[in-house]
């Protein structure tokens, strides 16, 4: 197996083509360095490393001076570098279905090879993921987030903690008893996580520091939200989706750090300057597109360039949407309670919007936006959505959203199909053919005054 994997790694090394998209903002250009630094620091700084799923709890790691490494981010990195395939092959050789999450298959394959060879796998970008002393998964967003990490124990003997984050459906979200019940549970779950971390790290959290980190996180969320909304609404678009697909990284994986806050302040200022001065990303913005759902094809982000060369730009993406501003009452001073309140309150706000739109909202999850909300706000001409063969979390509901769009407008909607990481599910000519036809439809609508 080891030889087979090495041969495969040699083969992928020969990939000659640039597959990433060009970056339009200076902030987006910084992200690659942040990511590389994140993995480098995990290996070199000597801090305890945790492998973590995106859990909306990064602030705890910052406060406890632990180093979170996010295998889902690492999997996306492997995909952009086109080095994910050997890891995927390895996981599938162990019996994991080729429709299980490709983030997970990359992470599991990576760990399997690590276990077999005793070394960080060859070709692991950015020096690999640092060795963890704990793992943290959560049930936020999808089932994979706790199942995958549970499965890591096949290869890595590392204590694992999983916790829940629940949000109520729109129909009952307003009820005080429901609110109390959901917040109480989320708080208990977060407390459980903190206890686990304290035990693993053999130290108690400094509550003043946690408070500072959480409040910094709250400020970061606000800058992030403002930057993204401004980026989506500005005409011409200064901040296309390929940039926002990069710029969510500090919010997801560095929340609570000073660097993350500074990043979004800078991003906002950059977008504002460009918006004020009508500086768009492409010379002539003929069509404003919405990436309406589904994770992006990390393996071929360059497809965005292809679209832009034809006068269209994705002005917003609904896959990674910041939580809206939440005013946390002054009476809530405990930082854990502040974290829970902000997450819950934003879920309630989403629920209220859903109710106004006549939607039920049970399938909404924090971090994903309903395209219906954005088409008017961002002057959208057409919507593209991405079905992912290995992601139920962001794929199910896209047809429903298309139907909801059709009930409210006659905007064209295009479905593309591949996967976020598994390039074997991607057929470039098929995508280009569909995108060309879609752009022709938009052209015809414009000519016809539609």
């Amino acid at each position: 197996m080891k030889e087979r994997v090495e041969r495969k790694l040699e083969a992928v090394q020969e990939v000659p083509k640039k597959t990433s998209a060009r970056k339009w903002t200076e902030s987006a250009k910084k992200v690659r360095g942040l990511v590389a630094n994140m993995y480098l620091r995990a290996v070199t700084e000597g801090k305890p490393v945790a492998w973590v799923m995106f859990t909306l709890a990064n602030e705890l790691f910052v406060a406890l001076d632990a180093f979170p490494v996010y295998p889902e981010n690492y999997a996306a990195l492997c995909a952009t570098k086109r080095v994910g395939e050997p890891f995927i092959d390895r996981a599938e050789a162990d019996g994991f279905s080729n429709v299980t999450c490709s983030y997970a298959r990359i992470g599991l394959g990576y760990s399997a090879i690590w276990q077999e060879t005793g070394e960080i796998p060859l070709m692991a970008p950015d020096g690999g993921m640092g060795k963890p002393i704990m793992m943290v998964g959560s049930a936020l967003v999808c089932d994979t987030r706790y199942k995958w990490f549970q499965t890591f124990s096949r290869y890595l003997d590392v204590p694992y903690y999983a916790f829940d984050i629940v949000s109520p459906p729109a129909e009952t979200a307003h009820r005080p008893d429901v609110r109390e019940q959901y917040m109480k549970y989320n708080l208990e779950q977060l407390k459980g996580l903190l206890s686990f971390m304290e035990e693993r790290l053999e130290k108690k959290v400094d509550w003043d520091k946690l408070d500072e980190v959480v409040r910094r996180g709250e400020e970061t969320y606000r800058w992030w939200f403002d930057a993204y909304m401004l980026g989506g609404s500005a005409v011409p678009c200064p901040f296309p989706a390929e940039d926002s697909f990069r710029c969510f990284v500090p919010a997801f994986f560095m929340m609570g750090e000073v660097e993350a806050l500074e990043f979004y302040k800078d991003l906002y200022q950059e977008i504002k300057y460009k918006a004020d001065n009508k500086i768009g990303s492409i010379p002539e913005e003929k069509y404003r597109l919405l990436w309406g759902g589904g994770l992006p094809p990390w393996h071929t982000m360059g497809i965005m360039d292809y679209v832009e060369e034809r006068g269209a730009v994705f002005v917003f993406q609904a896959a990674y949407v910041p939580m809206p501003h939440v005013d946390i009452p002054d009476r809530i001073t405990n930082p854990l309670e502040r974290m829970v309140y902000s997450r819950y309150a934003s879920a309630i706000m989403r629920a209220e919007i859903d109710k106004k739109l006549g939607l039920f909202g049970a399938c909404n999850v924090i971090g994903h936006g309903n395209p219906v909300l954005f088409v008017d706000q961002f002057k959208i001409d057409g919507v593209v959505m991405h079905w992912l063969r290995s992601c139920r979390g962001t794929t199910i509901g896209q047809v429903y959203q298309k139907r909801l769009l059709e009930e409210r407008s006659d905007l064209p909607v295009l479905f593309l199909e591949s996967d976020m990481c598994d390039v074997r599910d991607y057929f470039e000519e098929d995508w280009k053919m569909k995108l060309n036809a879609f752009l022709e439809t938009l052209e015809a609508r414009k000519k016809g005054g539609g």
Partner: protein
Amino acid sequence: MAEGLNWAKRLYQNRSQRARELRNEGKKVMGYICCQPPVELITAAGMVPYRITGTLEPITEADAYLETLMCPYVRSCFDLGIKGRYDFVDGIIWPHSCDNIQKTSDIWKHYIPHSYFKYLEVPHMTDPSALEFFTAELKVLKRSLEEYAGVEITDERLEEAIKVHNESRTLLRELSSLRKQDPPLLSGTEMTQVVLAAMSIPVAECNEMLRNIIQEVKARKDGPQKAVRLLVYGCEIDDIAFINLMEGCGANVVIDDLCIGTKYYWKDVATDGSPLKNLADHYLGEVMCPRTFHRSPGTRQQDLDNRFGYIRDFAKEFNVRGAILYIIRYCDTFEFDVPEVRDYLQQAGLPVLHLEDDYSLTSIQGFKTRIQAFLEMMG
């Protein structure tokens, strides 16, 4: 002879018939999907619990509402719903059991009209705070059912419902245990028919049917012949076709770990203390669905024993020679567990065959060849 297996067979062949009759008599029929909604609450509210299932018929209308890259079982259930085949169901309880089911909830509610629809949040964890949360969720569900049915669900009513449903589980276990002997007195195909029938009629009628079946099976002389004894593991098998296929290849399916199978009846709901809490304990902690995270603070082996030891115990208790893992594609929580279950059972000395299917059994010929080879390998 008292009506037994034929009763179940008729119900299996026309699952909705009795529910439709009862509805015409003025009863309310409450549909539910998956293993998490407590049927006891439905019974205590004076309604008929009816398990929503799919069909092996081709999916023809769901494509306009649901992606093809998702659980085909859920798609099939939806296809029946959108075609009006669940028009006899007054309401639906829709749990957050997995991504596929959770994310279909809005869509079902939006496009398939029922006079009642309740989404039930089910935590993924099983620690005390999760149990407390789920108990509170059940309390909200209880109140909602009371309002809909116009019936107060008192503790006494709920305790009585738990008692009769436990009786049902006891009878199903007794029936299942008649497969311990070799040859078994009951085939896996017949057992599947019985379980599906049980999920489509009021519990009191179900218990009467089960008593008749047990009496009949104990006395029967025309049971299955000796064959390779198998365990089948998987998610939603709501048709006899696959079980029948295995048995047609020369096996006796003598025990299962299936959603429409032992997960439904293997353990009773506790009867001491708060009935709502007992229901929460049971449906969250005791229904061994891979969607629920069972924390095990010990070693990896202890974790595996905690998660899969009961399957090994089934295999031992029912003296099986091998196991077939039948997984519906896109059922992620099962897909993640499959390599673990496979290795765990193999380490326990059981040969294992893993089949991944799109639920429609269109690959049935391919499966037949693989199952035959698997049985031949065991000699």
